[in-house]
């Protein structure tokens, strides 16, 4: 099992390659969409790179459960309901969703995903 620093280094490398950003920009607190300008297509690219870097298999929707965000049972008027938030927490134990929970607008989820969340995700996968 790699150390937290080793995980961060590899995640940083994946993000630098996928997003064309400078190493210094990739800090644990940086948000993928807000700070690093990741677009939706970049998430698939990032997933490919993480799979390769850590020799793991990431299923569709595992990192970013878009199926929940497009499910009418969980989303009303652009906001994720409490049932949906509970489902997101279950599917994303690696992410800190407390900020999102305060204002669960669908678009906010991707906006608030940080580099640290990605590291936690990898750690979670490696431990599974």
């Amino acid at each position, binding site marked *: 099992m790699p150390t937290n620093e080793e995980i961060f280094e590899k995640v940083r490398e994946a993000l630098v390659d996928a997003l064309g950003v400078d190493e210094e920009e990739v800090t644990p607190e940086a948000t993928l969409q807000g700070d690093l300008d990741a677009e939706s297509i970049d998430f698939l690219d990032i997933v*490919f790179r993480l799979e390769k870097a850590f020799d793991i298999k990431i299923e569709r929707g595992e990192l970013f459960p878009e199926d929940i965000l497009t499910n009418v049972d969980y989303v009303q008027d652009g906001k994720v309901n409490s049932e949906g938030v509970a489902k997101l927490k279950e599917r994303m134990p690696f992410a800190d969703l407390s900020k999102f929970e305060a204002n669960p607008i669908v678009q906010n989820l991707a906006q608030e995903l940080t580099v640290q969340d990605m590291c936690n995700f990898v750690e979670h996968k490696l431990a599974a």
Partner: protein
Amino acid sequence: MRWFWIDRFTEFVCDSHATAVKGVSLAEPHMHEHIVGYPLMPNSLVTEGIAQAGGLLVSEHYGFSELVVLAKLAKVRFHSHVRNGETLTYRVKVDTLRRDGAVVSATGHVGERLHAEAQLFFARLDESNDVTGGAPLFRPRDLRHWLELVGVFEVGVRQDGTRIREADYPLVEASPVV
């Protein structure tokens, strides 16, 4: 102008790599329109050629029956100018191949001279990314014609060395085109 940016494959190994060539001629209009008075092969079209070579390699993985689109150029670097009379050789290599897409690394050489390096990301559009209401974007017979023109079935082999045949793929008309 016809949107063919590779002339022919010289090697095509399924799920692995391929080599394609493109002869650069003064007879091509873009040579005169890119920088007037100084004929050059535009690098955007070099990129397109690399994308066509890589895209067909990836598309074969999905049996030439799925929509595969160039989603992203993760890296592109050019090192020289390509002039009329030169031949570009594109080498594309599959780095990652998955159900929902693929990553391809590529180079473009003129003889021994490295001209271009690229990393491309292709996405496979399935039912969840339906952009045409279920109708195909192109005619299978047009794709078949293109594959024939660039020699995919003349040089294409599987990893075990066996030849691929046109009849192995569903390149026949099934539904109307949008």
